[in-house]
């Protein structure tokens, strides 16, 4: 790969065709960043005009300017709520990783465990969380624990299923080689199966990051209790009751941004861990 790069930079007398291709690549690169920004600006502009021209009252649709000023004005309330939601989300994600990877390792080590428990993991996954959540809040006293349990239920399955798939995807010849060299179960797990599973696990992790946020928000809706220590979802509900639509939008924006930041962060971690060897992290020329 590095050889190819050296060659292209060393060659100076390229023909028009190649120059055109390079220009197209450059435009592609710039477009990747500028186009979404342009779309955003146009959308905000028409949103604003729509509200002004039609004289829509702010309790039906606030303009972007009002949403932004509300975001600034209500920042103390919203930021506290964000911290609560974020805390639940990250804790749920951590527990999902521990639980998902732990179960996956257990399943691949023991067929009996897998046969006994896998169907129930699937059932937990396919049952909508909004249907289970009310029950959870009846039986679990601590609100935080209840929220955490809901978010975990939503988030752990992609980690479990992806990691299980990864652990079973180790190269068969390498498995044979490990057997020939008399590797123990632990060695095979540590040196062969876990590294093989890493790209699969990281794929599951990125999905789980988004899902734990969704799980946390849905659980807050269901829990529905207010007061100190309530998260963004509750703030949205509350603002809805009070017809404070600008604050609803502001909270919604915060949730969306949080989701994007979590996804980007996990993608970055994934890139760091895989960049040296995995196909998904390698740049290809041409």
């Amino acid at each position, binding site marked *: *790969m590095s050889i190819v790069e050296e060659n292209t930079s060393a060659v100076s007398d390229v023909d028009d065709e190649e120059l055109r291709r390079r220009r197209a690549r450059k435009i592609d690169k710039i477009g990747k960043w500028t186009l979404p920004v342009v779309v955003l600006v146009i959308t905000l502009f028409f949103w604003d005009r729509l509200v002004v021209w039609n004289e829509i009252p702010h309790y039906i649709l606030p303009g972007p300017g009002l949403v932004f000023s509300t975001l600034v004005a209500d920042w103390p309330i919203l930021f506290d709520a964000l911290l609560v939601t974020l805390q639940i989300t990250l804790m749920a994600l951590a527990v999902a990783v521990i639980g998902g990877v732990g179960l996956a390792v257990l399943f691949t080590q023991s067929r009996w465990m897998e046969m006994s428990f896998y169907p129930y993991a699937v059932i937990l996954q396919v049952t909508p969380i909004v249907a289970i959540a009310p029950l959870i809040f009846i039986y679990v006293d601590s609100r935080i624990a209840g929220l955490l349990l809901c978010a975990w239920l939503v988030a752990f399955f992609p980690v479990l299923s992806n990691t299980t798939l990864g652990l079973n995807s180790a190269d068969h*010849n*390498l498995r044979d080689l490990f*057997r*020939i*060299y008399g590797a123990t179960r632990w060695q095979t797990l540590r040196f*062969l199966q876990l590294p093989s599973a890493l790209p699969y696990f990281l794929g599951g992790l990125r999905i789980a990051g988004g899902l734990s946020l969704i799980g946390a928000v849905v659980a807050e809706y269901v829990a529905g209790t207010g007061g100190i220590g309530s998260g963004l979802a509750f703030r949205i509900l509350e603002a809805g009751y009070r017809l404070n639509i600008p604050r609803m939008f502001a909270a919604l924006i915060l949730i969306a941004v949080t989701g994007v930041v979590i996804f980007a962060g996990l993608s970055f971690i994934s890139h760091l861990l895989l960049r040296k*060897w*995995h196909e998904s992290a*390698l740049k290809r020329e041409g």
Partner: protein
Amino acid sequence: MSISPAPLGSRAEVLRIEGVDKVFGGTVVALKGLSLTVNGGDFISLLGPSGCGKSTALRLIADLIHPTRGRITWSGGQAAGDLGVVFQEPTLMPWATVAQNVWLPFRLRGKSYASVKDDILEALKLVGLERFQNAYPRELSGGMKMRVSIARAMVTKPRLILMDEPFAALDEITRFRLNNDLLALKDKIGCTVIFVTHSVFESVFLSDRIVVMAARPGRVIRELTVDAPYPRDEDFRTSPEYAAHCRAASDALHEAMEGEAA
């Protein structure tokens, strides 16, 4: 520390296969009545059409599967590191560097990298890859990956190396070079090899014994001796002697495939 030919150079018996049958699923006879004695320094090719049980024989020797009948015995018993294996694919761990891949057989025996570093570098030097010890497999060509795989198989100085069509997936030029290098290596360290191939030319060039096998059921139909002395070089490839051996091996292979639809 260097890979010394002393214990490896001995012509003493290494392995004895006696009347081994392998039946899969109670009905499919993959191998019937295989008997073979492997002596130190032998380079034995198992040559035959697909389905003749060549790979089954290797898997039996590697103890990955067990014979339905018969016995496979290592003289003096088998110790850890007595066997090295090279598969058709390089079979490297993509997340580990070249040196870490070669370290694997030692690592699985609980040896630290520092304690076997010299052996690893020596093995890499023998296959001409000492400069690439910190590279990742994806940075190497197909032929270089195969060299790493060979270095890994040799690093424990095994009494026997099994090779399952290791060069079949490579282009002709790389294949010839690796054939030459493998013989140079054998000359240097005096290893004992069982080499599975379906190429007449490769088997004649490399081996001193060719075991020709037939399919359905997998069985040995002839054993040929290639008495040309080692080291063999490019000149051997063009000698009349080589042509004659190829002819004999080719005839035996035709005999093996008689009655089979192509």
